[in-house]
């Protein structure tokens, strides 16, 4: 086995001579330019448009107290319902509480409900953070995923999430951050879109004003 010093020394060896100038010159850049979206999407309405365009469902509610009823509408009688341990949803009634219920039980759940820490208007993405208590699996294994987000956590573009990582996670990012943009999909057979290949095929966003 090679240790790090030996591995990197081999690279440095190759790089010792002056770098070959590219025949087609590089364009000098000052910092890292921001992607600029046509139409400058922003705010809850643009998030809703983008999320729905991806095939997601949306409910907007005025108060925290309305979340339970909105979740019930999304669940629509299906079950069992599993719930994450994050502050946005953990007080809700559910059949299964993750992680206490265990993986086998979660594997049998029809619906998973978690809170998202942010959302992105331009791309219709919801940010789930493993450290929030939402965990990795509740929004992944069941056929239906329900995300509860706060309207004031909606930012404009992915850059607003990624470039602000130090503000959001001053101690460093949690072990997993995932941007979820719509239902699980695949086009691996003949480029034909299929949803719900491994992750949830039905996704709901409940936006609390």
């Amino acid at each position, binding site marked *: *086995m090679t240790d*790090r010093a030996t*591995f*990197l020394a*081999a*690279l*440095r060896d*190759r790089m010792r001579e002056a*770098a070959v100038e*590219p*025949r*087609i010159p*590089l*364009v000098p*850049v000052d910092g*890292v*330019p*921001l*992607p*600029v*979206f*046509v139409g400058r999407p922003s705010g809850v309405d643009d998030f809703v448009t983008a999320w729905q365009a991806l095939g997601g469902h949306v409910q907007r509610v005025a108060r925290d107290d309305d979340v339970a009823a909105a979740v019930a509408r999304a669940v629509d009688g299906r079950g069992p319902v599993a719930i994450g341990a994050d502050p946005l949803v953990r007080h809700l009634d559910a059949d299964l509480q993750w*992680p206490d219920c265990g*993986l*086998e039980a979660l*594997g049998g759940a029809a619906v998973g409900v978690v809170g998202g820490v942010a959302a992105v208007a331009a*791309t219709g*993405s919801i940010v789930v953070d*493993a*450290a929030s208590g939402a*965990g*990795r*699996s*509740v929004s*992944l294994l069941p056929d239906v995923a329900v995300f509860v987000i706060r309207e004031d956590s909606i930012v404009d573009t*992915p850059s607003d999430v*990624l*470039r602000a990582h130090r503000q959001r996670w001053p101690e*460093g*990012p*949690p*072990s*997993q*951050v*995932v941007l979820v*943009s719509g239902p*699980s*999909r*695949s*086009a*691996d*057979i*003949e*480029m034909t879109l*299929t949803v*719900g*290949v*491994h*992750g*949830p095929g039905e996704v709901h966003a409940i936006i609390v004003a």
Partner: protein
Amino acid sequence: MAALEGLTQRTDEALADTRLRAAVRNVTTGMTDKRQNALDQLENADELRDAARTVRAGIVGRLPEILEQWSDNFEANGGTVHWARDADEAVAAALAITRRHGSQRVVKGKSMASEEIHLNAAFEADGLQVIETDLGEFIIQLAGETPSHLIAPAIHKDRHDVAELFTEDAGQPVGPDIQDEAAYARRRLRSAFIAADVGVTGVNFAVAETGSIALVENEGNGRMCTSLPKVHIAIMGMERIVETWEQLDLMLSLLARSATGQPLTVYNNILSGPRRPGEADGPEELHVIVIDNGRSNLLGTEFVEALNCIRCGACLNTCPVYRHIGGHAYNSVYSGPIGAVLTPLLHPQDQGARDLAEASSLCGSCWDVCPVRIPLHDMLLGIRRRDAKQDAGPVRRLGFGMWSRLWGTRTGFDATRKATPAAMRVLGDRDEGPGWVGGWARGRALPVIPSQSLEQQLRDRP
């Protein structure tokens, strides 16, 4: 010339396969259109691509320091880094982990780096059960084949091929309906995810400043592989790294758009170490195996920019050669223009790999679509130039040497110019000749050269 036989034969076979050609055409055309639409949603896509090229070049130019910073931070997050100079070391590192855990079942997300080191075969030889979980990869695993496209590995299969494979796997009929086929894969693989003790994936980008790795995917199998098993092993090409989240943002803004025409893939996973105290789930161990495997051959050479590649596959979709023959005719892990450049550089001893640089019309379309603007056409020419110099025998050296000397003088150049019209009249537009001359002449017509040169006409002008 004899060395090209393998490539020529594979090309002929691919061209004769009308079903394959229709499938490849369908996919490459669709992806090319979607890519353009997705880039048009950004006001400054071209500016971003120029910047991405410069940023990637800067990273590769300081690769050792950046890898050092990343691995310090990644290990501080509780992860383990293994360094592998070649495929054997990478496989040994992976097997050491699975053996220590007594692992039996591996679920795999799509990873070209793992294809490069032939990890599945090594795991299976060690008694492990390995299941590919990306839908396309699962299909070709059942077929016993290799990926034919960077991001859509099974594009050479249609729904009927898939139905046959799934029917055999299920032991009962699965019809040629794409939704039914996807549903079968979901059911079939779900139990594998729950039972697996190791998840294996690739890495799209490591991020040095926080010791993270980013993984993009659409199906959720990557999330499964990195969330459910107790151990996650990621195989990473040593150049797949950025320094900052700003750079990650830039690369992610281009990767999915160039690959599938999505603004972002459905799941963008950013992983920074194994599960932490207080987190509900996640792997107990996270290992990254960093592989060189020939990549350092490119450092300090005119081909170094090939290491900037972010593996989107756009150059495959646009390439007139790839669009006609698909990926398998290349007979290498990486196909298309990037494969034709990378393969001979990663494996300089492999004669078959060197021939891949011939599989190009040098039209430059690959360069035109590349999100990090790698001058792939220029590199293909560079590889041909290098090989021609190395391979030239005494006759060729003598011939080109004489030509060079002849045209190096005014009188020599004028003499050949004056002789050309007469020579052309003799050669005419023949369709045959000895050996490769005949092969070249067939279907080509030599131009008719006027008896008076442009220079002479200008001189004679009143």
